[in-house]
């Protein structure tokens, strides 16, 4: 990884990030987890500057285990999770019907990507997960009905870094789709 002036080039960060599915047991500090959210997550754009996202950090191992059991997509024993939720009531007020249907999901996705890129720049591994049972996760995390988990971002130090999957490049058209 090329490092200039103490930071990685943005292109290297984007292309170097991988979905990590095997983590070392080393804990991630509370400060690091908070910085992922405060220095990156909340700096993502949000539709109408709604900022209806809420971030629940899970580091308690017994709680993490419960989350894992209702989240089949979560694997590799990450030591920490950031559950990106949306306040759908506030989203409806700020974004109309489009708020809960689309904007809240898009906003959460952009926040997740910011978190993952910043984490990679800090030497952490991440994986974004949507494969969980929403109501079960709400129950395990004791969340109110209006606060809906959209994504889980697993965070930890990578044990195995997978190769980059091939990228399809024939996905661009200029001015006209043929």
């Amino acid at each position, binding site marked *: 990884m090329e490092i200039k002036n103490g930071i990685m080039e943005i292109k290297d960060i984007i292309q170097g990030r991988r*979905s990590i*599915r*095997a983590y070392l047991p080393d804990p991630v500090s509370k400060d690091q987890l908070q910085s992922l959210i405060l220095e990156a997550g909340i700096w993502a754009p949000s539709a109408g500057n709604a900022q209806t996202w809420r971030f629940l950090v899970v580091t308690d191992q017994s709680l993490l*285990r419960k989350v*894992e*059991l*209702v*989240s*089949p*997509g979560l*694997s590799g024993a990450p030591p920490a999770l950031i559950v990106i939720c949306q306040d759908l009531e506030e989203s409806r007020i700020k974004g109309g019907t489009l708020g809960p249907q689309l904007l809240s999901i898009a906003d959460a996705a952009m926040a997740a990507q910011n978190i993952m890129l910043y984490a990679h720049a800090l030497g952490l591994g991440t994986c974004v997960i949507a*494969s*969980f*049972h929403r109501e*079960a996760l709400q129950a395990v995390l004791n969340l109110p009905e209006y606060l809906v988990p959209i994504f889980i971002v697993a965070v930890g130090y990578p044990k*195995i870094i*997978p*190769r980059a*999957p*091939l990228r399809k490049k024939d996905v661009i058209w200029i001015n006209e789709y043929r």
Partner: protein
Amino acid sequence: MNTDKEQKSKFNYKQIIDLICYSIVSARNLLQEPKIYGPLRAIEIACRLIDSIPLELQKDSPLLMLREHIEAAKSSVVEGEDSFQRHLDSLVSDVVAILNNRKKEDIK
């Protein structure tokens, strides 16, 4: 010295409950998830079943190698469906070999 039967009774009850929970949530979620997640969840369950077997029974067991192969298969998903299928075929060969090496007294 513990008998094989006594050791088997030490199966981690909590792990089994966890596995039941994981299986049921997976079944529900798979209704709406990509098709390839199905085999992925199935081999993950196989992995967790192996982990629920007490270490003393896993010793010298072909299941340890099988577990390694399952991990490799899980990783192969990102390489595409063909690669994943090859790994799954190889896992099938592994379990068939385990079945064929079973002692007669175990087949009851």
